[in-house]
C-alpha cells in the first residue's frame, strides 16, 4: 500500500476532510502524552541549564552559558563521551553478530523450534537487577562459577576480579548488556527473515550461489528496512543504558565504566549540580539528534518512511 493507491481509492477524495479530522483525533492523545512527558520537561531542562541550581528544590539565578562552557571544557565529559562511543559501537557489533548468528540458527528446521524461538528471549524479559545479580553471582571471586571453571580447567591459576580492573570491568558490562539485549534483536531479525520469500533462495541456489553469497545478496538487502530502524533505535537505546552500568559497577572502578548517562547522574545527584547536569544532558541530546539526522541521510532505505 502506498500513497497514490490510497489517493486513487474510491473514497480517497470524498472522505478526505473527515479523514483529516479523524486522523488528528486519533493521534492527538499520544501527541499530548508525549508533549506532557517529553516537551514540557525538555523546556524546563533547557531553562534549568542556564541557571545555577545546585540541589533539587533550591532556587537558582540565570548565569547564561556558564554551565555549557563548564561541561564542554571538562575533560571528564569528553572521556565519558568517548566511553559512550566505545560502548555503543562494541555493543552494536557484538549484538548484531550474535543476533544474526542466532537468527540463522533458529531459521533451521529442528525439533521444538517454536519453543526455542520463544524462550531465546528469556534474558530480555527479566528485570536488569536480576541480570546484575545473576552475573555478579557468576563472576564473583569466591563461589563464582566462572572463576571456578576457569581455575579448574587450568585457564587461570587464581580467581580474577572481573570488575576490578578498568578494561575487564568495561568488557564485562558490555558482554552482560549484550547478553541481555541480543535476544530481542534476534527475534526481530527472525521476523524479518521469515518475511523473505523462499523462492528467492531457491532461485539463487539454482544459480549456484553459496550460503554466504545468498546471505549477502538476498538476506541482507531484504532486511535493510528492519536493520535501518534497529540500527537507529538500538543505538539510541544503547547509549541511554544506565541501569546495567549503575547496578554492576556504579561507573567504576575509577570511572572506567562511566558513560555519559552515569556522568550526568553523578553530577546531578552526587555532586548536587542540577543545572550543570541539565546542560550536559542537553549537549548529549544535541549529539544524539545530529546522529539521527546523519544516520537518516546515509542509511535511509528507499521505501522506509
Amino acid at each position, binding site marked *: 500500500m502506498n500513497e497514490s493507491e490510497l489517493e486513487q481509492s474510491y473514497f480517497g477524495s470524498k472522505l478526505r476532510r473527515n479523514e483529516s479530522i479523524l*486522523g488528528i483525533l486519533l493521534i492527538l492523545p499520544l*501527541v499530548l502524552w508525549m508533549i506532557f512527558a517529553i516537551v514540557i520537561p525538555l523546556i524546563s531542562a533547557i531553562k534549568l541549564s542556564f541557571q545555577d541550581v545546585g540541589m533539587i528544590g533550591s532556587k537558582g539565578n540565570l548565569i547564561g552559558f556558564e554551565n555549557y562552557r563548564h561541561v564542554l571544557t571538562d575533560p571528564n565529559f569528553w572521556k565519558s563521551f568517548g566511553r559512550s562511543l566505545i560502548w555503543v559501537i562494541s555493543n552494536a557489533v557484538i549484538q548484531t553478530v550474535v543476533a544474526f548468528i542466532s537468527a540463522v540458527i533458529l531459521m533451521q528446521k529442528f525439533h521444538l523450534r517454536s519453543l526455542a524461538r520463544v524462550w531465546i528471549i528469556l534474558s530480555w524479559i527479566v528485570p536488569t537487577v536480576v541480570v546484575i*545479580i545473576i552475573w555478579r*553471582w557468576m563472576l564473583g571471586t569466591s*563461589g563464582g562459577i566462572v572463576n571456578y571453571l576457569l581455575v579448574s580447567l587450568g585457564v587461570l591459576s587464581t580467581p580474577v576480579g572481573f570488575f576490578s580492573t578498568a578494561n575487564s570491568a568495561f568488557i564485562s558490562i558490555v558482554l552482560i548488556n549484550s547478553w541481555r539485549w541480543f535476544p530481542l534483536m534476534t527475534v526481530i531479525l527472525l521476523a524479518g527473515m521469515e518475511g523473505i520469500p523462499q523462492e528467492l533462495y531457491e532461485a539463487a541456489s539454482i544459480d549456484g550461489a553459496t550460503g554466504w553469497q545468498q546471505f549477502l545478496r538476498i538476506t541482507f538487502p531484504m532486511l535493510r528496512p528492519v536493520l535501518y530502524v534497529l540500527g537507529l533505535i538500538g543505538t539510541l537505546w544503547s547509549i541511554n543504558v544506565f541501569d546495567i552500568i549503575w547496578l554492576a559497577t556504579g561507573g567504576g572502578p575509577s570511572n572506567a565504566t562511566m558513560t555519559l548517562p552515569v556522568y550526568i547522574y553523578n553530577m546531578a545527584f552526587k555532586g548536587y549540580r542540577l543545572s550543570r547536569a541539565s546542560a550536559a544532558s542537553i549537549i548529549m541530546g544535541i549529539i544524539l539528534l545530529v546522529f539521527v539526522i546523519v544516520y537518516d541521510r546515509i542509511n535511509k532505505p528507499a521505501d522506509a518512511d
Partner: protein
Amino acid sequence: MFFRKFRRSFGTFISVFILVFIVVAPFYWIFSSSVKTNQEIISRDLTFFPHSSTLKHYTDLFAASNYPRYLFNSTLVATLTMIITVILATMAAYAIYRLRFPGRNIIAKLILSAYAFPSILLLIPLYLMLSSIQPKLIDTPWALVIVNVTFAAPFGVWMLQAFFKSVPVELEDAAYMDGANRLQTMILIMLPLTAPGISSIAIYSFISSWTEYMFASVFILGEANRTIPVGLAGIVGQYQVDWGLLLAGATIATLPVLILFSLVGRNFVEGLTAGSVK
C-alpha cells in the same frame, strides 16, 4: 547422503544447544543455587545439582521484605502501562498508516525521535514537574506509568506499521459500501486483522515496564510504591551479602514474567513475524 544429512542436523543440534545454553544456563544456576543451604552456597566446591534443598531463603525473603507489595506494584504499573500503550499506539498507528492528513509523516518521525532524548535528561525536570503539579504524581504508580508509556509507545507505533500497511484497502472499502463509518471499520476490520501486532506491543510494553529501574529508583520515595527492580536492589543492601536471599529474590522476580511468557510468549514472536510476512 545419509551422513551429510546427519552431519548437518548434528551441526544444527549443537548450535541450537549452545545458543539455548548461553541464554538459559545462568537462570538454571540461580534457580538451583537459591534452594541450597547457605553452607552449600558459599562453599568453595561448587555443586551443579543442589545437594541440600531448603526453602529458607524464600521464607526469609517474604519475612524480611515487602516482596508481595513490590510484586503487586510492578504488576499494577506494568498492566496500566500495557493498556495505555496499546490504546495510544494503536490509535496513532492507524492514523499515521491508514489515514491521510497534513503533517502525519512529520508527526510519525517526531514520535520515533522520542528515543533521541536521553532518558537521563528527562529524569530531573520530570521529577520536578511531577512533584509540583496537583494532584501530586511523584511517589505514585502513575509517575512510572507516564514514563513507561512514553518510552514504549514509539516502538509500538513502529511495530504496528507493517500490520496496518498490509491490510488491503479493498477490505475497508467494502465495509464503507456496507455503510460502516471510519470508526466502525477501524474496530471491526482493522483490529482483528492486526491483533497479532497489538498483542506484541502489549507484551513489549508490559516487559519494558516490568524491567524499568532508573525512573523507579528516583520517582518512588517510600516503601509503599516500590517496584520489584528497586525493591530487589534494596535487598542487595550494603551491610550484608546474603546470596541466598538475593538469589531467591531474583528467582521470584523472574517467575511472573516466566509465567506470562509461557502463556503468551508465542504471540510476541509470531506477532512480530506475522507483521513482516504480510
